[in-house]
Each structure stands twice: as C-alpha cells, then as structure tokens.
C-alpha cells in the first residue's frame, strides 16, 4: 500500500470494428501519456501538476476528442470544456465554451489558482485566457478533416454522436446500422464515438488529483455543456481519491458519478475497487459510461459498462497496463 499511482483514459464506448492500426495508435498514445505521468510522479511532482501535464498531452494530440481533434457542434464549431480538482482542500477549476485556447485544462487550472471563482465559460473564459496570457490559436487549429466528415454523418443520422477516429471511407450511416447491433446514446456504435480524455493520479504524499477535458458531443447544440466540466459528475478529487469519468454525459451528470465513488468510500467505508464497481454497476441506470480512479493508498481502478474504454494505468510497484477492450 502507498506509493504513487496513475491512470489515463481516452474515452468509453468503442466501435468493435475499429481498424487495428487505429487501435495501435491509440495504445501508443496512451502509453506515451502514461509514461509522461510516471516520470513526473517519480520526480516528485505533485499529483495536481501531473494530471494537468498528462491531459495537456492528450489535448494536443488530435487522436482523442479534446483540444485538437475535438468533436464539432451542430454549427461545425469547437466548444471545449475541462475541469481539474486538487484532492487536499478540494480546490477546483472548470471552463466551458472555450474556442481559441490551445489547452483548456490549463485554463481550468488557472481558474482554480488565479481567479476568485471555480468555473468560467464562453466569452468570460476567453477573456480570462487573454488576461492570463495563455497560448491561443485560430479556432480552425482544433478542427480535423475527420471530424468534419463525422459531423456530416451525424447530421445524416440526425442524432447526437459521440466522436471516434474511424476513417470516413470505412463507415457510413447506412452501413453502420447493419454492421453492429451495439448502440450508445441511440446510435450504432460505429458512428458513435467516444470521448473525453482524463487523468487521475496520487503522488507519493498520498495527494490525489483528477482532470478531464473534452470537445463534447458531435453535433451538439451550441452552448451545450456536458459532464466533463461539472465537479462531482465528470471530475472529483478529495482526501480519499481522484476520479475522472467518460461516456454518456447526461447519465454521468444525473448519477453525479465522480462524487459517488468518493461518497461510498467516505460514507460506507468501501475500498476503491468496491466503490468503483458499485458505481458502475448500480449508479448508471440505463446509461453507459466508464471511469478511472486512484486512492490515497496508491491503488488504481478502471471500470466501464461499455464494450471498451481507451485506458492505461500504472502503480509504483511496477504494474502497468494499457487497454481498450474488456
């Protein structure tokens, strides 16, 4: 018991027909980010710095749905959101409706550290970003050709779409319906695509932290806020643990999922794995989601009720695992 631990995710709900090369790319990215986090923990960086560092890396890579590579709103624009929480003292910061900030998670951190508030959104968040001098870019930096294609498909299917990196030529709204019976949020899994990215860590002082970042739902209404910036839903950290969730945002919000893990540990005395199992098994009702969590004792847990979740975890005693499927 004790020691550092870390977990990362790139989203829950994966197309079972995902091309092998894409699976490999995803695993490589998860491994790279995990190693960045492990190095940082080994050099005694506090958990709050570690989770920010790792999520920045995930935002910068266009593979997953956050920062560059974010899913597009119904208007074809990017509206990113993120939140971060520091276990000791439960300080937190969140942003929504971010359109030019290269690393939304870092802006969320600044809200936590440099503003009198916990959550800033839209033009107020962008204004704060300028005041703070964070790196900003033109909005088209975040938009990828693949996502432009996915948005078209989603509009054809006329439904909300989670995003995923399936190359356009290998899927279509029609083929999708027949390819697989699996569905998420009412969509065939090959159009449905995750994600959100996140990282949780506990350092060798037993301090926990959590960070989550996303572009949100493909084809979402402009102004739609999901679970990722909602403290207690997509992100939570306290003395006992750090949690980051991914999946159907509305189900995660209703279930106050991240807080739930900590609450059953705190009020029912469950250990991390028991808490995580309980929450995924009992608290999702009809919803689909996954989460990663660490405890102050150096434990790590990942759990999901979807068919897959891009994830990786490692502990100080040498355990390390990266995976996609169950």
């Amino acid at each position: 018991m004790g020691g550092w631990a870390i977990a990362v995710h790139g989203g829950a709900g994966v197309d079972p027909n995902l091309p092998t090369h894409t699976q490999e790319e995803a695993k490589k990215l998860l491994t790279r980010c995990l190693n960045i986090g492990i190095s940082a923990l080994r050099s005694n960086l506090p958990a709050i710095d570690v989770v920010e560092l790792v999520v920045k890396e995930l935002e910068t890579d266009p593979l997953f749905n956050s920062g560059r590579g974010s899913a597009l709103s119904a208007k074809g624009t990017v509206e990113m959101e993120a939140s971060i929480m520091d276990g000791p003292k439960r300080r937190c910061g969140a942003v929504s409706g971010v359109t030019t900030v290269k690393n939304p998670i870092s802006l969320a951190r600044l809200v936590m550290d440099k503003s009198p508030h916990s959550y800033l959104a839209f033009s107020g968040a962008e204004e704060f970003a300028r005041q703070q001098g964070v790196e900003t870019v033109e909005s088209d930096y975040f938009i990828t050709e693949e996502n432009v294609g996915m948005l078209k498909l989603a509009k054809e299917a006329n439904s909300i779409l989670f995003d995923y990196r399936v190359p356009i030529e290998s899927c279509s709204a029609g083929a999708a319906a027949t390819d697989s019976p699996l569905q998420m949020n009412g969509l065939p899994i090959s159009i449905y695509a995750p994600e959100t990215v996140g990282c949780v860590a506990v350092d060798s002082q037993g301090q926990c932290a959590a960070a989550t970042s996303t572009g949100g739902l493909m084809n979402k209404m402009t102004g739609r806020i999901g679970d990722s910036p909602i403290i207690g839903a997509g992100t939570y950290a306290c003395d006992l643990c750090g949690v980051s969730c991914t999946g159907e945002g509305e189900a995660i919000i209703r279930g106050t999922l991240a807080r739930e893990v900590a609450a059953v540990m705190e009020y029912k005395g469950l250990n991390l794995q028991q808490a995580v199992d309980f929450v995924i098994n009992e608290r999702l009702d009809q919803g689909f989601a996954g989460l990663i969590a660490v405890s102050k004792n150096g434990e790590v847990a990942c759990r999901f009720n979807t068919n897959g979740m891009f994830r990786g975890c490692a502990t100080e005693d040498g355990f390390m695992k990266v995976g996609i499927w169950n």
Partner: protein
Amino acid sequence: MGWAIALHGGAGDIPRSLPPERRIPREAALRHCLDIGVVALKANKHPLDVVELVVRELENIPNYNAGRGSVLTTAGTVEMEACIMDGKTKKCGAVSGLTTVVNPISLARLVMEKTSHIYLAFDGAEAFAREQGVETVDPSHFITQENIERLNQAKEANRVQIDYTQPIQKEVKAETHIADGDSQIGTVGCVAVDNHGNLATATSTGGLVNKMVGRIGDTPIIGSGTYANRLCAVSATGKGEEIIRGTVARDVAALMEFKGLSLKEAAAYVVEESTPKGNVGLVAVSATGEVTMAFNTTGMFRACATEDGYTEIGIWPSPQT
C-alpha cells in the same frame, strides 16, 4: 407522509439591523410564494410544476437575487442561471448566462423536456429560448437601482460579494460589519414533495455581485446547488464556490442513503460539519414529507409548510435551534 414544501430567498450575513422597509417586503414575498406553492400542492399539482411555479414567482420579485433583481457582473450586466430536477426520474435541466429570458427556471425546464441535453449556456441557451418562444425582454428589465449600488460598493471595496449588503447609507456601512462584502446571500429555490413521494427541486440566481463575466456558480451544477432523487430534494444557497467543492445538495442525499441519517440530521451535518461557517444554507424535503431548512450563515430568507399544518417563515435562526 403527506406533502411538504420549502423555499428560500438566499442565505448570508443578513444583519439583524435590517431596516423594516427592507425586511417587510421580503417576508411578505416569502409568505406569498409559500401560499402559491401550498395551493398548488393541495390542488394535486406535481412537485415539478409546484417548484417551477414558486421559483418563477421569486424570479419576478425584484427584491431577490434571481430574474429581475439579479445582482450584476463586473461589467454591470446580468447573467442568470437556473436548474430544475425531478427526484423519481433524476431528469434535470440547467441554464447559465441568460440575459433576456424573463424566467430562467422555465427555460431550464424546457432544456430538460425538449432537448436530449441537460445544460445549455450563454448564446446557445439564448438561441434555444428564442426557438422555444419563451418570454424575453431587454436586458435592462432585470437591473435594479439597488443592484447598481451594490456593484459600485463592491468595486470600491474591490471585492466579489454575495449580495444583501445594504447598498446605500455609508454611515450605516461603517457601523455594521456586513460592509466587508462577505455577506453571503443570493439565489432563490424551492423544493416540494407530494403525498405520492414525488420530489422536485428548483434553484435560480443572478450569481455573485461583481462576478467575472462568464462565472458560473453552484446553482446550475447538479449535485452542488440543486439535487433530487427518490429520497429527497435539495436546493442550496450561499457562496457558490464552497457549495461546489462540498457537493452540498448531493451530500445531503448521500448521507441519508449511505449513512442512514434522517433528512434533518443529513442537512445539519452538511451545514455544520462539511462546509465552512458563514457560507451555506439549504432547504430540503424528504419522500416521507419531512422538511428542513438549515444554514451556517447569520440568516436565510426561508419559508416552509407541511400537510399537517406546520408553517414557518423566517430570516434568522428560530429561537428553539
């Protein structure tokens, strides 16, 4: 068993020296809104309809920090937010950054019922309001002289404050300690349960005086300012940042569920043990018709009633507590 209802007009450092001309209209408003809610419950309206009705009324009253009478951002503008949740289904709706919508709580309800989303904000929320044809007005409708003065006061003191400080009379300001800007009020809310155990909660606010443009508080955050499940319905008020950190509304329900505390015990625990003094208040009802109104601030504008005839309207702690 039986119906129960509770509502609040904000918790904070409400001075006992609050002059009658400021206290009486607010008490009358609480009484009026309580009556509306009770009549609706007696007419068998669903708690979701009851809480929306009551909060709409509170939003329309300029003395409370929601809808008309909302406090101002640092730019002198109004950015309103609201949230509604149904206990049995845990369906919910939330809005933030509204500038023209007369009743934010009703827009939150439309988000819940007419979209596949839970939360819409700023331009997107305003656009949805127009699509839905809800009543909108010029932003100046919401701004009151009192709040302009509060903002000036806050800027002078260079602080963010939760409202209900006396905006004028500088002599009074010097005498009373409330002038330090830490008075912590704001937000209106209502919770209700009918005699079938249906529960609902609704909260609405203009936020913090002199808040940064774009600042979102606890009100629209499910689990923080607003929460309902099969056990209880909760609406919180006070310093938003503390309520978020403390996931206040969810915690009341979690303590009941996981530690077997009663509604009263759970609410008392949250305001006395889990959150810093001077920051938080809440109203809550349980599926079995209990009601509680708890706060760790100097006062909380509040009112409640239960089917067995109990009624309470108050500002400061009741003598027996």
